C-alpha cells in the first residue's frame, strides 16, 4: 500500500514553487509536467474503480482498461490546450512531451516505491519502456493533431482517431509485456523503436515546414 496523493504532493510542491521563478516555455513545460502527474493519479483512481465495478481482475484491467483510461486522461489537457489556445506546432509538441513525461515520472515513482528499486536492470527496463511509451503515445497524438490542423481536417472523427491510435499503441505494449518471454522483450523494445521513428518523422516534418 502506497499513499499516491502524498507522493504527488511531495513532488508537486517544489515544481509549483519553481513556477514562480520561470517564464515562457519553461513555465509552460513545468505546468504541463505537473498536469501530467495529476492526470496519472486520476487515471489510477478511475482504473481502480473500473476494476472494482466490473470484477475484471487487476491483470485484465491493466491490459485492457488502463490503456483506454490513461490515454483518454492524457488527451483531455492536450485537447483543451489545442482547442482553446490554438498553439503553434512546436508549443503543442512541448506540452505533449511534458504531459507524457509527468505522467511517466509519477507512475514510475509510485511503482518503484511499491515494489522496490534494488534491482537496477529492472528499474532501467521500466524507465526505458513505460517511461518512453507514455511520451511516445502522447507525442504521436500531438503530431496527428498537428498534421490534421495543417491539412485543415481537424474534426471530431480525427480526434477520436487520434485517441484510438494512442490507446491501441499503449494496449499493444501492455499486451506484449504481459505475455512474458519473447513477447515481453519485443514489448520493452517497442517504445524505444517507435520513439526513434517518431523523432525522425518529426524532424522531417519540421524541415518541410521551414522550406
Amino acid at each position, binding site marked *: 500500500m502506497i499513499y499516491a496523493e502524498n507522493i504527488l504532493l511531495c513532488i508537486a510542491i517544489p515544481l509549483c514553487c519553481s513556477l514562480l521563478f520561470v517564464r515562457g516555455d519553461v513555465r509552460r513545460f513545468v505546468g504541463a509536467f505537473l498536469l501530467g502527474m495529476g492526470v496519472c493519479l486520476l487515471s489510477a483512481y478511475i482504473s481502480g474503480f473500473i476494476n472494482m465495478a466490473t470484477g475484471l481482475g487487476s491483470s485484465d484491467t491493466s491490459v485492457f482498461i488502463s490503456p483506454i483510461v490513461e490515454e483518454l486522461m492524457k488527451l483531455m489537457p492536450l485537447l483543451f490546450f489545442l482547442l482553446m489556445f490554438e498553439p503553434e506546432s512546436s508549443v503543442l509538441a512541448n506540452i505533449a512531451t511534458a504531459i507524457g513525461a509527468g505522467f511517466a515520472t509519477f507512475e514510475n515513482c509510485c511503482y518503484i516505491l511499491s515494489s522496490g528499486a534494488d534491482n537496477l536492470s529492472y528499474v532501467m527496463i521500466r524507465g526505458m519502456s513505460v517511461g518512453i511509451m507514455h511520451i511516445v503515445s502522447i507525442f504521436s497524438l500531438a503530431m*496527428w493533431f498537428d498534421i490534421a490542423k495543417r491539412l485543415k481536417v481537424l474534426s471530431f*472523427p480525427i480526434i477520436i482517431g487520434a485517441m*484510438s*491510435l494512442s490507446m*491501441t499503441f499503449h494496449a499493444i505494449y501492455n*499486451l506484449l509485456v504481459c505475455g512474458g518471454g519473447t*513477447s515481453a522483450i519485443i514489448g520493452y523494445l517497442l517504445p524505444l523503436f517507435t520513439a526513434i521513428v517518431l523523432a525522425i518523422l518529426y524532424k522531417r516534418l519540421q524541415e518541410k515546414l521551414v522550406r
Partner: protein
Amino acid sequence: MGSIIMPDKYETLFGIIGVIIEIGPVVLSLLVSLCLLLCIIRDISHGSGSRKTILFAFGMACMLLSNIYWIIYDILRSGQRMPFAANEISEWALFLLLGAALSAAFPKKDSALVQKIFAAVFATANTALWIAWSGEWIQDVVTGLCLLYFLCNIAQGAKDTKALGRIQWAALSAACVLSVTFQALCFFLPESYTVYNVMSEPLSSLSLSAFVLYSFVKALKLRFSGDRGKSSCYAFIAYALCLCGMYMTSGLFYVGFYIANSVFTITIYRSFAKEGGHDIR
C-alpha cells in the same frame, strides 16, 4: 477403439490450416491497410492528397493498429474471448473517419431522409442482434451509433451522385431486410427447427453477398468508365454490407466477408485516388 486416429502430420496440417483461417484474413487486412497508407502518404507528398483521401488515410492508420492488436491477441491469448479493448475504439474511429471521408467527397446536395431513416433502422436492427448474441450493451450501442453515422453518409452520397436507381434501392433494401430477418428468426423459432437454425447464417450471408457482388462489379465498371463518384458509392456500399455480414456471421462466412472487406478497401482507395477537385494543398 472404433475412433479414427489421425496421423500426426495431418494433425499438424489441419492445425496450420486452422491458424491460417483464424489469422489469415486479419493479416491480409493488415497488409492492405499498410500498403494503402503508404500509397496515400506518397500521394500526399506528391501534392495530390485531397481532404477525403487524408481522412481515408487516418482511417487506414486506425485499421492498421487495430489489426496489429488483433494478431498479437490471437497469438498470445488464442481461444480466449476478448473483453472490451482499445482496438474496438479504433474500429469506431474507422467508421467515423470513413463517414467523414464520404461527407468530404460528396458535399450534401439533396435531402436523403428516407434513405437515412432506412439506414438508421438497419443499423439499429444490427445492433439489436449484436446485443442479443454478446450481451455487451454499451460497446454494441456505441459501435451501432458509429455504424449509423457511416451508413447515413453512404446513403447521402448515393442519393447525391444518383448512383442507385429505384430498382437498385429496392434490391439493396431487400438484401438488408432479408439478412437481418433470417438471423432474427432464430431467436423466435423453437430450437426444434434445427434445419432453419443451421440454414439461417447461409441464407443471411447469401442475401447480403448477392448485392455485395453486384456493387463490386458495378464499382469496377464505373471506375473504368471514369465515373469515380458513383464508383466510390458502390465501393462503399459493398464495404459496408461486408462489414455488417462480418459482424453477423461466424466461421467460413465470416472469413469470406473479412477477405471481401479488405478487397473493397482497395476499391475505395482506387475510386478516391488522384481524383480532381477540392484539393486542399
